[in-house]
């Protein structure tokens, strides 16, 4: 038997003195930090409608890929996670590999968008963006790269507009919304979402952000900021930290009606894997997805548990299905250094054998 501690009094005092010193010195560093910028990879708007913008991302050279790839992000948070900072940018990395990348930036909904439905988003906005990419690139079908909820949208789209999709990539995408470890799903199950949306209208981003923080309350509300003290004297690390804070908290509200539908149909009734989802007048049958599919998920994902994504393999109709498990979390899959080494090259390699 050994005592669990080896705490020398002088060392303890040294530890807390160091903490306070860093904290005191850090105030000055925080005071002079500029607003952190995203990677801002050169881009051109090729289509705009209401709040959304379709961006054509520009690399150093011309793309070598024949088929363009449209990145479909979730309605929560912003697409700039994929282009967060120069050395941690999924977009830049894919461009460097020769891919031709378009980003769908949904924008920030306001009261005018309260009644937008999933039909408006998927059969409307997304379909018109796909058409715009097809037209711009002069192709009949595009690759879709759907992320998180955007992956779910991409699945719905591919199942109902199959002729416009060549290859489908899903990243951290929920498919089975009721796996036992899905905390968000458990919490959403008993909520009267009709009354919730009726009284809230659009769902404020601040409210959703709080819900996400409470998935891991001590880690995300405290431990993270205790860790901040250690990097206050490192300008580069501090900028990276603040950039991530910007991305986390600078997020759009949710159009009320689309939110209501998504919670009800997907989270509460888990209709996607039952083949019961209707987007407008189009039934969504995952069995209709016969395109090549690459499904990437994160093994430590606390927002979309790996099993929620793995389910795709059991329901999709294609015979060309590839699954890639990434050792990291929901955000790390885009911004960690491991992700830069592993994810974009894997996507490029998979696409290059199918374009």
């Amino acid at each position, binding site marked *: 038997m050994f005592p669990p501690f080896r705490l020398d009094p002088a060392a303890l005092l040294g530890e807390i003195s160091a903490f306070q010193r860093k904290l005191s010195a850090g105030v000055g560093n925080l005071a002079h930090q500029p607003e952190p910028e995203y990677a801002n990879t050169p881009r051109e708007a090729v289509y705009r409608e209401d709040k959304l913008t379709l961006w054509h991302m520009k690399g150093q050279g011309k793309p070598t890929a024949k088929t363009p790839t449209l990145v479909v992000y979730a309605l929560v948070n912003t697409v700039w996670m994929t282009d967060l900072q120069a050395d941690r940018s999924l977009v830049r990395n894919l461009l460097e590999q020769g891919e031709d990348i378009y980003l769908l930036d949904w924008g920030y909904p306001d009261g005018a968008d309260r009644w937008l439905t999933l039909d408006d988003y998927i059969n409307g906005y997304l379909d018109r963006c796909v058409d715009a990419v097809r037209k711009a690139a002069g192709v009949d079908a595009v690759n879709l790269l759907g992320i998180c909820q955007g992956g779910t949208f991409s699945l719905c789209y591919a199942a109902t507009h199959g002729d416009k999709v060549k290859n489908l990539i899903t990243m951290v995408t929920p498919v089975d919304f009721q796996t036992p470890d899905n905390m968000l799903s458990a919490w959403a199950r008993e909520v*009267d979402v009709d009354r919730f949306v009726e009284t809230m209208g659009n769902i404020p981003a601040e409210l959703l952000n709080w819900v996400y923080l409470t998935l891991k309350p001590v880690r995300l509300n405290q431990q993270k900021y205790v860790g901040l003290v250690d990097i206050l004297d490192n300008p580069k690390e501090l900028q990276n930290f603040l950039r991530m804070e910007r991305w986390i908290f600078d997020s759009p509200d949710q159009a009320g009606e689309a939110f209501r539908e998504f919670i009800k149909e997907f989270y509460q009734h888990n209709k996607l894997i039952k083949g019961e989802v209707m987007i407008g007048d189009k039934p969504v049958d995952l069995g209709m997805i016969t395109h090549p599919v690459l499904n990437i998920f994160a093994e430590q994902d606390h927002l979309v548990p790996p099993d929620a994504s793995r389910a795709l393999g059991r329901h999709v109709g294609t015979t060309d299905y590839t699954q890639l498990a990434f050792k990291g979390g929901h955000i790390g899959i885009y911004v960690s250094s491991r992700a830069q080494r592993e994810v974009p090259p894997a996507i490029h390699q998979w696409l290059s054998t199918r374009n």
Partner: protein
Amino acid sequence: MSDQASDLLKDYQAMAQQSWDAWTHYLQQHASMAQPFGQTAWGAPFGAGEDVLTRSMAAMKGYGEWLQGAVGSGLGQGTGDWQQSLQQLFASLGGQPFAHAFASIDSEAARSFTQMWQAWLQAGQSGLAGAHFDVEHMAAFGFTRERQLQQQALAAAMQAYLESAGKYQALIQRANTEGFERLQAKLTELTNSQRQVDSLKALYDLWVDGAEEAYAQIALSEEFRRAYGDMVNAQSRVRELKQQMLDAACRELGMPTRGEVSALGKRLQELRREVRAGTSPAASEEITALRAEVAALKRELAGKAAPGKPATKKPAPRSSKRAETEKEAVVRRAKPAAAVVARKSVVRGATRTRK
């Protein structure tokens, strides 16, 4: 040795105080910049200076205080009972060293929600000040009967919300307690190995692991799911009733209500869908086909109406014009919805002029 430690602790406390003063000064400056118009008329539920200050500092301040308490607790020093020292450390800080990480888990926004509605409820009941009877359960009658019922419903809903929030908080408290128990279990495991906790940060990280594990288990339980749903639903009910009262007040003042604005938004969105459906490629193709069919029928009818006349007879000039107009209409049909609407307005204007 004890004098030296005492002096060091005093020095540390003085430094800690300076540090917090510096941070307070920094954050107050930024909070005041963020609130150029000072406190809002709503009692500043979000972002008021003090609130921003408290939230921003809470994580690091809580950790700093815990460090200070740990040094004074004698934890890890001597050969005493480590479990007792650990308990003393946590007990000296109210048994919940990081209570804020959990205590505010129903969000500052939710707390403001409670405060706001309570204040309004009290304001609404001010007319009954001094009445020493159970207002909530009084039979309603007289000219203000409907308003009495509304007030009673709101009071009952508020009470239901407070009860559901209490049940939710009880589960959070349980997570806090079980988190500490898990920390003890983890430390006990260490006594059977050669690994030891050699810093307060390591002890803190171990506590975070235990706290998150305990919380996750509770947060995924049926009991938590129901408590969460009940709390959200009760809050929605309060909001719903208050909105009804506000709508009534707006109607009395001749102001548009939330419900009316929402209904207009819904109709507008429906109209946008109808217009878009009418100009979709599928709809255009159908119209083109129908026009061609009508034209063919007209030609057939024209042929039957003039028996004996040669089939190759040159059509009347007026018919030619019609045919041209139809052709033009088909071409124009492909134009955007706005152009179609504008053109229709012109045609209507021309018709009226002819009359």
